[in-house]
């Protein structure tokens, strides 16, 4: 049902810039950088409000991904509920990602879905 969705890639980021490092956490990431499929446009999602959530940061972050039409998440680690939520929303996840966000995005776009 979402097969024709436009590709949108979210990277959990420690800074509001592609030059910063990947934030290793998904739910409590400082920011998300949401890029289009060609890496030409990058939106910044401020997720620092997750610090205020005693519970449910993971599912709240999934909701933010859904609102932004994200199709793929690149991050370090995803909690169990967020993982289930992302799966239910049909969003692909690649974990174990680290390094500078720009390099991560370029590498991902270079290899495509692989």
């Amino acid at each position, binding site marked *: 049902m979402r097969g024709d969705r436009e590709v949108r890639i979210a990277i959990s980021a420690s800074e509001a810039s592609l030059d910063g490092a990947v934030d290793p956490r998904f739910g409590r990431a400082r920011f998300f950088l949401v890029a289009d499929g060609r890496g030409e446009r990058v939106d910044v999602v401020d997720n620092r409000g997750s610090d205020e959530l005693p*519970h449910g940061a993971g599912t709240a972050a999934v909701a933010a991904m859904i609102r932004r039409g994200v199709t793929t998440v690149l991050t370090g680690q995803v909690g169990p509920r967020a993982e289930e939520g992302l799966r239910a*929303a*049909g969003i692909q996840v690649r974990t174990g990602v680290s390094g500078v966000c720009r390099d991560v995005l370029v590498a991902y776009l270079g290899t495509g879905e692989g």
Partner: protein
Amino acid sequence: MGAAASSDGGPLVVAVASGKGGTGKTTVAVSLALTAPSPAVYADCDVEEPDGALFLHPAIDRERPFTQLLPVFVTKLCDGCGVCHDVCEYKAILVADTPLLFADRCHACGACAALCPRGAIREEPVERGAIRSGHRNGLAFVEGRLRIGEASPTALVREVRALAVAAGRRLVILDAAPGTSCPVIAAAHRADFLLLVTEPTPAGVADLARVADLAAHFGVPAAVVLNKADLWPPAQETVTAFCASRSLPYLGAVPYDTAFHAAARAGRSAVEVCSPMLAGRLLALWEDVRAFLDEAARARVA
């Protein structure tokens, strides 16, 4: 007997808490319950690992399921607006193509069902634990037992507490969970008296400070008993100094003795099995506790 009296007709409620686990809460609570000077009820509020029954061996008169109303989505009515996710304090609902409930996170508050603009959420009872009640001779017994895998014990603690208070006994002894989080607060925050059991270890002392903060925050009178006191004598001074600094009455020490282990292995309470000296020390606690309960009863009148 003063401890039996409560001016407003309700029972006097004593909660036994510790901060750290393994300090001897249940040992003390069970011993107090078995030697209570007035008709009492023992309530096991440590619903994630209730163990009072292992020592009390109560006759169980009634066992019933503990259920909560959880949301069920009528997906054909849902338009995906996300209000349920937004109002959920624990973000236990996620609206993807259809709503998804993370039941272990759900505190059954009912906000999603009440506020869904499409009426697409109804509530159905789900069993999340059990409540057993019974007696041992004159002592009434209540226990909450959370189902394995459930993450939210607080509502069950509240229900166990309410049943204990309604049991028609003049004295309620609540055996609280370790820690200082919601389940402990649910048992302790409206108690007339909080008995804090600690041990002479760094963690025991540090967690005593946390649970003393809890007592102060909720304005519950508290006093401290040091269990296994001679295990590490310098800590006894640390505890007494802490009590003095916080104006917390120090009720004294229960010595370390392997007789407590033997009692536990035999599934018996310490007061039944231990030497007269040890049992006497536990019984003497009542004298001190009674003084505080009298004080609490007077405070109610005032």
